[in-house]
């Protein structure tokens, strides 16, 4: 008479233990799947981030590059204090509010280099991922501001309307914005910091 409750309690405890383990395992799988999905989304977005249209103005040093071959910018220009060039030779000396194909000069009202803290050239996609969501380096943007920036900013959008013979960034700004949003909502996972 006394053994039934004991067995019942033991069975309940065992079931609880098994259940917790199963749940833990299931949770790990879900977390792992979600992280893998998030990383996959970022890799897709990385096709834009690592296109010449974006990398040219996110140089690793002070000098931008140009063309699909990412050649050093001609003439020799530098970032300057605020990303708009050196005194006497600001970006605006040549780059204006719109592309001007007659002179082969691209343009946008906000034409400038990305800040040095957002240099992407020479970095792995994993390093760019960590960098891009770090407010200390991305211009103080939280995730909401970052998503707005990539989906709405006019200079970012220039990458899909580069004019001339320049190859646009893959897809569209809307698709890129949606990808980045899905990445953020899936946990903003980052690939490992190593060459892809």
């Amino acid at each position, binding site marked *: 008479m006394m053994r039934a409750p004991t067995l019942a309690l033991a069975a309940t405890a065992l079931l609880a233990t098994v259940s917790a383990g199963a749940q833990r395992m299931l949770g790990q799988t879900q977390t792992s799947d979600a992280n893998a999905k998030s990383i996959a989304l970022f890799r897709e977005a990385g096709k834009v981030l690592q296109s010449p249209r974006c990398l040219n103005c996110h140089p690793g040093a002070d000098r931008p590059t140009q063309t699909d071959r990412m050649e050093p910018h*001609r*003439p*020799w*220009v*530098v970032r300057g204090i605020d990303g708009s060039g*050196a*005194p*006497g*030779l*600001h970006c*605006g*000396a*040549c*780059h*204006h*509010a*719109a592309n*001007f194909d*007659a*002179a*082969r*000069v691209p343009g946008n009202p906000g034409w400038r280099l990305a800040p040095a803290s957002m240099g992407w050239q020479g970095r792995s996609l994993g390093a760019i991922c960590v960098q891009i969501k770090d407010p200390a380096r991305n211009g103080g943007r939280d995730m909401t501001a970052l998503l707005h920036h990539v989906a709405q900013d006019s200079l970012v959008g220039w990458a899909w309307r580069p004019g001339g013979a320049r190859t646009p960034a893959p897809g569209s700004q809307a698709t890129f914005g949606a990808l980045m949003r899905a990445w953020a909502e899936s946990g903003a996972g980052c690939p490992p910091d190593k060459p892809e």
Partner: protein
Amino acid sequence: MGLINIKINGSSRSIDVDGDTPLLWVLRDNLGLTGTKFGCGIALCGACTVFVDDRPLRACSLPISALGESEVTTIEGVTGREAVAVQSAWVARDVPQCGYCQSGQVMSAIALLKEIRKPTDRDIDLALNGNLCRCATYVRIRAAIHDAARALEG
């Protein structure tokens, strides 16, 4: 084609040109201001440097339709302390050789001195990297800008 008003060297002019015409063509072909030179036409050489609202700009890179209400100053109309100092230094140092690029060099030098009163060699190099000189008068250009900066101190 259509009439476009342009503020140039302190006066207003109306010209009948296509809106896509580069400012440089308007200056040289329509207004007869040939001091601004055509070098490359693709914003690589700096020979066509003018001021638009007091900022240096390559005239080949701007369609006239984008000028709006902005005021253009060319080598023929540039004035002010920096302009006098640079032009005096240019003459004293006998900077030009063939002279073709020099109006652009002078405009960029003036622009630099408006931003940096006492530029270093590096400041000069960075500001004038976009102004090419096939005669390689760069050493005299740099020296003349230092002279002009000293003159502006006095």
